[in-house]
């Protein structure tokens, strides 16, 4: 029997999970653990931060090629074995925007991690001898509770349209895989000649459907987690006042001194029945104040990640260009008339002091919210990053399945795709596959 120290050195693939519950908190903590965590963190940051020290770092989808900035996050690099799981791990304290969390989850999957199974962090802590033995049975209960909660969640989901959709894919994929396995294991059995062509067609169909689903504009995520509307504009344009008006309460510090709002302030409210996070950003201007400069940087970050941008200005300083997709709002029309359009987009004129034009603005925003969350396709939306990660992995393997040279490589890709979906719908065993094979084809000599 190996000693516990021998076990401790065994590598386990990296896994990740949100350590905080939902995105309702301001901060979302993503925890990653497993062999290769260092490489993943390096991919996201470029370099490893000092161990066990919190540092603010820019997260990239791929830091080496500087592709897709994801967030500026507090990063904790916790090399093993002296940590919870006993293996190399790190924590990312993210801004809790739904788009950020799901983008980071996607980046982690691309970097080679997978979503953790129920209780998996705890299991690893056991495996690496990180949990006191007297805690053992108590923790089994804890896992039971955790699993039960996830089971209920899964059950609720499996009764919904999303569950139906994933099970439908899993069933079809099992069928495809069964036919592939039949072609590999029973080539001499007089199988109908169209089997291979049919399975390729079906594989391509599945790939396309999952791809369309993944590209649905993250509508489902938006409904569940709510939308983010960023309000941007030069200092003292009245952004905080507008935010307060929309949220109907005093949240941001409003002062006549330009540049008061130095960091982004978020308020959650309801618009058109959808949860909306309003982000009041620092004024956009050149600044030498380092703290304000950080605020400006963050403002741009929020602009990039918001579902909708309100761009505020005064008539005398109307911009020549709009941020992509922004709604132009001209404040202080009690002092000077608003321009009709900027880059052919009609400008909404308001006066926060007189409270004129605010009803029209609210109506306009509600229409945008409805548009952003409207059902544009028949497929039910993706509601969980976990589902999304599984669908992404399955999609990658289906794509590969159509590109490989040999049928057994295709079989391998299909198995991996099946396994990814199986994490959501229940694993498919060899016996299930063989049942499908023998149910469909007459095999045997």
């Amino acid at each position, binding site marked *: 029997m190996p000693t516990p120290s021998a*076990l401790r050195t065994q590598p386990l693939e990296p896994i990740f999970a949100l350590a905080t519950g939902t995105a309702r908190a301001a901060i979302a903590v993503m925890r990653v653990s497993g062999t290769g965590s260092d490489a993943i963190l390096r991919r996201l940051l470029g370099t490893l931060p000092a161990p066990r020290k919190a540092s603010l770092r820019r997260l990239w989808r791929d830091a080496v090629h500087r592709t897709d900035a994801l967030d500026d996050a507090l990063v904790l690099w916790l090399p093993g074995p002296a940590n919870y799981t006993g293996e190399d791990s790190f924590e990312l304290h993210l801004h809790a925007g739904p788009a950020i969390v799901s983008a980071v989850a996607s980046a982690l999957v691309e970097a080679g991690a997978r979503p953790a199974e129920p209780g998996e962090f705890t299991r690893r802590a056991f495996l690496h001898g990180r949990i006191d*033995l007297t805690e*053992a049975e108590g923790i089994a209960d804890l896992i039971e509770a955790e699993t039960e909660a996830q089971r209920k969640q899964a059950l609720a989901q499996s009764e919904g349209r999303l569950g139906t959709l994933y099970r439908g894919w899993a069933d079809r994929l099992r069928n495809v895989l069964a036919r592939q396995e039949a072609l590999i294991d029973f080539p001499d059995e*007089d199988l109908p000649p169209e089997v291979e062509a049919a399975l390729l067609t079906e594989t391509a169909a599945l790939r396309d459907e999952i791809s369309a689903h993944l590209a649905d504009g993250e509508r489902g995520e938006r409904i569940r987690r709510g939308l983010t509307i960023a309000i941007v504009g030069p200092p003292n344009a009245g952004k905080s006042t507008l935010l307060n008006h929309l949220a109907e309460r005093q949240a941001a510090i409003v002062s006549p001194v330009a540049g008061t709002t130095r960091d982004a302030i978020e308020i959650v409210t309801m618009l058109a029945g959808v949860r909306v996070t309003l982000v009041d950003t620092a004024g956009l201007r050149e600044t030498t104040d380092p703290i304000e400069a950080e605020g400006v940087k963050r403002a741009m970050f929020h602009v990039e990640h918001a579902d909708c941008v309100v761009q505020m200005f005064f008539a005398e300083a109307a911009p020549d260009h709009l941020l992509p997709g922004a709604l132009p709002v001209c404040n202080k029309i009690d002092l000077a008339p608003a321009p009709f359009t900027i880059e052919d987009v009609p400008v909404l004129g308001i006066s926060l002091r007189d409270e004129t034009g605010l009803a029209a603005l609210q109506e306009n925003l509600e229409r945008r919210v409805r548009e952003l969350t409207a059902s544009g396709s028949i497929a039910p939306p993706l509601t969980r990053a976990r589902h999304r990660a599984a669908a992404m992995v399955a999609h990658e393997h289906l794509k590969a399945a159509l590109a490989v*040279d040999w049928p*057994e490589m295709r079989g391998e890709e299909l198995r991996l795709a099946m396994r990814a979906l199986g994490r959501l719908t229940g694993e498919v065993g060899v016996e299930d596959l063989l049942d499908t094979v*023998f149910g469909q084809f007459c095999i*045997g*000599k």
Partner: protein
Amino acid sequence: MKNQFDVIVVGGGHAGCEAAAAAARCGARTVLLTHRMETVGAMSCNPAIGGIGKGHLVREIDALDGLMGRAADAAGIHFKLLNRSKGPAVHGPRAQADRGLYRDAIHTLLHATENLTLLEAAVDDLNLAPDGSVSGVTCEDGRTFTAPSVVIAAGTFLRGVIHFGHDTQPAGRVGDRPANALGRRLEALGLPMGRLKTGTPARLDRASIDWESLAEDAGDAQPEPFSRLTERITNPQISCRITATNERTHDIIRDSLHLSAVYSGAIAGRGPRYCPSIEDKVVRFAERTSHQIFLEPEALPGNPGGDLVYPNGISTSLPPAVQERMIRTMAGLENARIVRPGYAVEYDYIDPRALTHSLELRAIPGLFMAGQINGTTGYEEAGAQGLLAGVNAAHRAAGNTPVTLSRSDAYIGVMIDDLVTQGVSEPYRMFTSRAEYRLTLRADNADLRLTPIGETWGCVDTMRATLFGQTRVAIQSATERAAQETWLPAPLIAAGVSVSPDGRRRSLLDVLATGAKADAIGLLAPWFVALPPRIRLHVETEARYSGYLARQEREIRQLHNESSIIVPEDFDFSRVGGLSAEMRERFERAHPANFAAAQRIPGVTPSALMALLAHLKQQQAA
């Protein structure tokens, strides 16, 4: 004492022969006891060895210095590498054998094995020592044999019943008596047992078939041997013929279903899903109007059995008269004469969940089970189990610890793990789809995977070990050289390799991974194409699969990690806190050998696994 041995093997089929030879190779004084000496090594059903998945098993047996590959090479008269158009991981070496030559080859190999005695004796009873372990066997004629290890490889002989339509007779194989006393004895030991069925088609007189009118099915022009010890195949090679059932055949079968042993309810044992009798095929796939039948000669012309043809694909338990009418509806078989009718056979098997991964009965130390008695079907499955049981029987006799193969080592490991953890609900047959690590466990690398393991077990002869050592060195040096030689994209593109002009240097392994054509490789690395085919193909295959192999290696490491958390043989699951009665029962039934196996038990919840793990870690620390 004259009848005292280290290992007794009961049964001279494929499992028994491999078990006896393996035990003897490990240095154990071994006796093989058989009903009838002349049936030792007989191919009682289809005269073919290998196939897809099964061919992997033959190569693995050979890698462990077993008999089957060498015997098939000596007896093969029609070699075919199945799945040749697919990649090497699913290539299935197969050969049809001359029945007599095969049996002779096995006899020759057994007689050349040191430490091995072959005796004709009908074993009726098992003898146990006071401590409950096995101590030997007693024969029908009163003779007793003693040994600390006994391997039972009784095939379908345990309370076998043969069905020709409604006629039944007790027998293991037509013409041979069943081992009823032994079956009753095993039942009296309280072992969990079940009943299975299998079938065989009629044998036809070759002279009565219009052979030349039928489509020819030729073997490979360059037959590829099973064994690493075989340089080339010397037997003359013959062709098979192909015919097919038709609507008239199916009408006769449908009209006679009430006469079939299987369909009239006379047989209680469960048959396989994958090898349906012709009755099954017609009933379950009613929309099919035809099924292919391969006509396979059982021996070379002029040899004993050379006049017999095995019609592969038409196993049946219909009455002989119906069999004749049905067969005569097929093209080329209009005047076919049945030499021996097909039949179904029902037999007892031991629930393999009663066995450890070393194929030893948990309840009776020293008693090993191998082959069809464990619920498997096929010569290859039987032989592979026999080999492992034989090695373990010898190890036990010598006081050594048991040896096992894991799911990541070999198809043998996959099969045994499936058997002892999942049990069987139909005769178990090997398929490549059962192997999680299919691209890693290939027929072409069986020796690289297993010969070193076999050397540590003591079952590999020095001649094979030397030969293997040379191969391994050649593969290593070729792989190293192929990793070191690199090119910029320009010369590669000039040679006809499709790579992107990204300025990156690529090694020969990278180039091979793209599936580059042989002439391109010839231009770039003439030394590589000049390598012996075995070496070259190995390097190519590993390069083609490299991405997958790396992934499987990571998974295998995780498996080993969890496999190293052992569940002791005498582990008491009721002492695990927080297990529901249902979970405890599932664990007890499967008795997983380790934590990885525990996770494969169907229906076990994550919390039950956690509780088990917590308990195991606690014990490990104590």
